[in-house]
């Protein structure tokens, strides 16, 4: 019987439906102001995608920032455990998960079975998160999705020293006033994020290989900057935003013993 993982993040809600270990449906919606409704919507869309009825699901595990708001879950599990499990499934060689979501950034050390060994999270600071990039894209009048590609063209990234979202924005504004090109400023922003994430991550054992998950993984500029900082190639999974929901679904499958 199919099982589902729903990941209600601060910016987007995701759902993954598994049957016999295979993904048969998935969805992604904006969370907006109501995480309960967003979780519901993500679940409904994934059901539609898979062509199954809710009653046909054996188990639903909900994770993410809004997990406690869902009224349809069999169990809630933190996104830390779920990202670890999801990353292990798509890339068994991964030992460090860097999850850069809408509001949180995390580094998770995992063992060969995908179990969490240690983790560290950002503390009241949006640097390195999707929200930070949204603010920067807004300040530079660039589409969020274009940031990554643009930054790769830079030959001399402009130094951005602040990692505080508010201060970084004013620093970016002064770089603009100095006439520095957008390309170099964006590359500088990505470097600042990479430094911040690196500094946070090394508080736990960072072992190779590193995998990046969450919405920010879609920004190739951040990924390249992180690779430079960690001095290693970083795995970008096919659907980085769904790794948490996938992990939740996999745990749901384990709990029901219906895996494989």
């Amino acid at each position, binding site marked *: 019987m199919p099982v589902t993982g729903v990941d209600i993040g601060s910016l987007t809600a995701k759902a993954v439906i598994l049957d016999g270990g295979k993904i048969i449906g998935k969805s992604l919606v904006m969370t907006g102001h109501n995480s309960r409704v967003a979780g519901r919507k993500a679940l409904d869309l994934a059901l539609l995608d898979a062509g199954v009825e809710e009653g046909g699901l054996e188990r639903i595990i909900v994770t993410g*920032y809004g997990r406690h708001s869902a009224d349809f879950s069999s169990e809630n*599990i*933190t*996104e*830390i*455990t779920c990202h*670890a*499990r999801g990353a292990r499934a798509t890339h068994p060689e991964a030992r460090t998960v860097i999850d850069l979501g809408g509001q949180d950034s995390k580094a998770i050390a995992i063992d060969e079975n*995908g*179990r*969490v*060994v*240690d*983790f560290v*999270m950002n*503390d*009241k600071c949006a640097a390195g998160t999707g929200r930070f990039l949204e603010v920067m894209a807004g300040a530079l009048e660039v589409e969020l999705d274009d940031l990554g590609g643009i930054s790769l063209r830079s030959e001399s990234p402009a130094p951005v020293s602040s990692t505080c979202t508010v201060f970084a924005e004013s620093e970016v504004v002064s770089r603009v006033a100095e006439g520095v090109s957008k390309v170099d400023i964006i590359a500088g922003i990505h470097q600042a994020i990479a430094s911040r994430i690196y500094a946070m991550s090394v508080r736990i054992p960072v072992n190779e290989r590193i995998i990046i998950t969450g919405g920010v993984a879609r920004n190739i500029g951040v990924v390249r900057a992180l690779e430079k900082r960690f001095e290693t190639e970083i795995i970008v999974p096919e659907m980085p935003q769904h790794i948490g929901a996938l992990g939740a679904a996999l*745990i749901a499958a384990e709990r029901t013993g219906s895996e494989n």
Partner: protein
Amino acid sequence: MDDALARMMELRDDPFQWARGWKERTGSKVLGFFCGYVPEEIIHAAGALPVRITGDNRVTSKSGAHLQSYCCSLARTSLDMALTGDLDFLDGTVFVHTCDTMQRLSDIWRLNACFPFHVDLVLPVRFEGEAALEYMRLELANFRKKVEENIGPVTDAALSESIKLYNRNRELLAELYELRREDPGIMSSDQALWLVASSALIEKSEHNVLLEEVLEGLGGSSGQSDGKVRLFAAGSVMDQYDFLKMVEEVGGTIVDDDFCTGHRYFDAQVPEDGDPIEGIARRLADRGSCPCKYLPSRDRAGRLLDRIEKSGARGAIFFQFKFCDPHSFDYPYIKKALDEAGIPSLHLEIEHDSVSVEQLRTRVEALLEIVRGN
């Protein structure tokens, strides 16, 4: 909940209400203090009530003008309490030179809070050896003299009496911890830690009576800790009861700790025979040490690991106030020892002026998931 425990829990919403009432009733003096190394017995023997100030969950309005932004919220919110008049019932304050922030806070406090009595106690940083003990004896005797000059006479007889009361209190608190190690279900972590913290807010003979009643009233397990993960916690002051309640809510329970408002407060006894001042000095050196003090022969991490093992804790939480450098300094070495022993742990930083328990919930839940093997 039994009556004595319920009565004690009521005091938590307004920690100084008991002290204010006591002052009104007795007309005696109340001295505030910050640190577990304060020889409360001497103050008590002079007929005054020592009460511990541990900050307040508030957005400060007046202390920001006096303190750098890297001072901890314990200093920041406590000074704010003094400057906004919330500590007006105090007749004086006792500071111990532990960390730099506390040392500097003392000067700022003396010049701006202006309580009639102000005293600094400078204990040795390194507690071991005869020279340290001799120095400590002189410093404590000096403290006694200042208390006698400003508060009231401290006779040897009164001091012995106070020492007995304090020893009894420590004995009762140790018993409480022992009972919770056996069965954490007898009361929740937030209740147990309040029982220790309240001991530094209520006159000791009265606190002893309340504690005895609470211990007698403990009929057996409430079953509330069934299936909960036993945890150990460490830090300086623990006054964040909403945090402790959240830990219980998500399925953990703190069965032992190394807080200075927890186990360190009642650890070790003052010998009841011999010179009382020397006895107090010996206890301060014997008790579980704070990271501000140095005992070369003592392995703090090893001691914590022993206690973790004895308590059956399967994980640990380091609970720290932001910018607390003595605790940050010890953390990597203790964390390493825990990692090597296979004890998963969590490092949390919080501030009194922006407590966000919900943000910490995910981390504590993740720690429990690690302990349970995900």
